[in-house]
């Protein structure tokens, strides 16, 4: 007890110090440490979230790029395929048309040739006929002149025809 007196301790001052310290502790706990630690935790979470979000965005971006590239490639392949098909069809069609035109032309030429041939044959026949008539007339005339005597025309003609036939 003497030591306590020498150190200046009494119950009142100890109680007062205890109350003081308790209030100090409580106030700091409730209004400083707790909010501050929560605040720091929140900020840590925010930063963490920010970093993960950024990472996610980056990943998404890369993904999108890959997707875009894929789509582009697909479209390109499709277009190539389609154009190839179109060219094939066009080539086929062109060839068909060409063949058709050639066939038609050939037929037309054939027709023309046939017609011309017929015409020529006909004309030749006509010419031969005409020549024959002319020759006959000429022979008759020359014979009449040679003979100077008119034989019966019917008999005459018969004789001439026989000669010609011979």
């Amino acid at each position, binding site marked *: 007890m003497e030591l306590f007196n020498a*150190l200046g301790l009494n119950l009142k*001052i100890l109680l007062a110090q205890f109350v*003081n*310290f308790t209030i*100090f502790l409580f106030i700091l706990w409730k*209004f400083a*440490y707790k909010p501050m630690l929560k605040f720091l935790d929140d900020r840590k979470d925010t930063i963490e979230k920010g970093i993960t979000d950024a990472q996610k965005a980056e990943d998404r971006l890369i993904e999108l790029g890959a997707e875009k590239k894929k789509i582009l490639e697909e479209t390109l392949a499709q277009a190539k395929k389609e154009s190839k098909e179109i060219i094939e069809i066009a080539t086929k069609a062109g060839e068909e048309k060409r063949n058709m035109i050639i066939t038609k032309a050939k037929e037309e030429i054939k027709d023309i040739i046939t017609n011309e041939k017929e015409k020529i044959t006909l004309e030749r026949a006509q010419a031969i006929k005409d020549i024959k008539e002319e020759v006959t007339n000429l022979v008759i005339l020359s014979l009449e002149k040679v003979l100077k005597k008119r034989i019966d025309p019917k008999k005459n003609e018969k004789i001439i025809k026989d000669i010609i036939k011979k």
Partner: protein
Amino acid sequence: MNISLSAETIFNIGSFGVTNSFLWTVILSIIIMIVSVTITRKAKKVPGKLQNIFEMIIEGAYGFVLSVMEDEKKAKKVFPLIFSMFLLTLMANLSTFIPGQAAITIKSGENMVPLFRSIMADYSLVFVMTLISVVTTQIVALFVHGPFGYIGKFINIGGIKEFFVQAFKGNVKFSILAQGFLDFFLGFMDIIGEIAKVVSLSFRLFGNIFAGEVLLAVLLFLAPFILPIPFKFLSLLTAIVQAFVFSVLTLIFIKMASEIDEDELVEQVTM
């Protein structure tokens, strides 16, 4: 030169004598509370300079407590007590370096008493904080070990009981009895150890600060110029180190009390 072991009473409120160190305790507590609560209230997402320093201190201290406790839940519970002790002790010790304060005296009754006294050079708050520290440690131990485990740690008769159980079976082994007595003795020593904790913890802080004050007072009396400067630095070191030591010892006591030995854990499970 007047060196007083006890704090001097400045004035009385009723029958309660307000001592100079108590007055400063109240003033310092209020200042710390206002500053920290204001900083916390005004906390912004992007911190300013003052908030940055405050955050750094709190975060560092919390990180330290967490590294000792190794458990987030426990650390969150114990951190306010440890850090409040540290903050108050540190500020109290550092506030003695405000120049000129020792010169102010006030008339109280017939004596002239200094208005200012280093808070930790008065045993009252040190004693209260030590009691809080030790009682908290005991409460933690009580909760962790359970009432029987807690008492069993101090009054350890398990070994002696074991001897009699074996003896009853006709197997008299004095080595067990010797071990039992040793355990009992060690348990008894634990009681003394807990009481000694109060003394060692409190007088470490009080003694260092008080001795520093006395040493400086004596030196200022003997050689007022230049010579006290190294001792001033020394007491600055003491001020910081003792604040740290006091709070960290409390932290370690609580940590030790909150731990369960493996064999005890097995015992609890098999019970």
